[in-house]
């Protein structure tokens, strides 16, 4: 049996990587990739806690993960559509050049 801590630490590592991508990258698509990585880390945690919990039968962790995956797909679709739309108007997707709303 794999100790649950191993899964949790791997998930924490993936989450940190995703957070770094979301905070430190300039390109909007790279930021979106980081968000996807973070969502996956959360899913690993949900499934690990489901498998190592006492109520394996009621499948709550799996249900949660499926909903997270669906929301992530929706978020990626709208996010990328927004990026394409912004690119069409501004000819750039670098986040620090998009400062129209800055007073």
């Amino acid at each position: 049996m794999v100790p649950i801590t191993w899964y949790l630490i791997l998930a924490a590592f993936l989450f940190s990587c995703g957070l770094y991508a979301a905070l430190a990258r300039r390109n909007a698509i790279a930021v979106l990739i980081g968000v996807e990585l973070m969502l996956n880390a959360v899913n690993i945690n949900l499934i690990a806690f489901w498998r190592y919990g006492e109520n394996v039968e009621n499948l709550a962790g799996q249900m949660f993960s499926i909903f997270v995956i669906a929301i992530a797909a929706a978020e990626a679709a709208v996010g990328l559509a927004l990026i394409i739309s912004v690119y069409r108007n501004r000819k750039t997707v670098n986040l620090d050049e998009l400062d129209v709303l800055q007073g």
Partner: protein
Amino acid sequence: MPANLDELIAQLPTFQQFMFVQVALFTAVMALLVVLARNLFHNALALVGALFGVAGLYALLEAEFLAVSQVLIYVGGISTLITFAIMLTRGMMFGDTSPNNRQAGTAAIVIGTMFSVMAGFLLQVPWQEAYVELGDGQAIIANLGRLFVNEYLIPFEMMALLLLVVLAGAIMLARDHMIE
């Protein structure tokens, strides 16, 4: 002597642990590549690898349906979408395309601290590890389907509605207005 041998065998990693370490290392390396590679297209390719690794973890945790949906939705769908977006935005395929912004150094320090605190915390807590062996007909995909149309019916329908709205909204947003 046989007692010693038994002890030695008990200390060896099990097959599951061996597989976990391999999949986890692959996923971690891919995740690092996602963040550190300079070329945006390489980031997207590494993301595909990391998502495959996560699907392997789901399989190790005996969540077969999730492993399959992970490959279908993430590797098949979202990665393709990201690749298309990269190719639609100009000149992203070659060279250093995605530099970091000014707060990269600060972000690295903060996130390094956060990860070490989190890892220390995770190692300290005595997690509950019931780990019931799954028998025949336990936690199978049919049960998932039954839950979807009973207890989780409302969220399931809301999800369908959300996906429909997203489909229409994404097309509206990404549409080329010049064509009209």
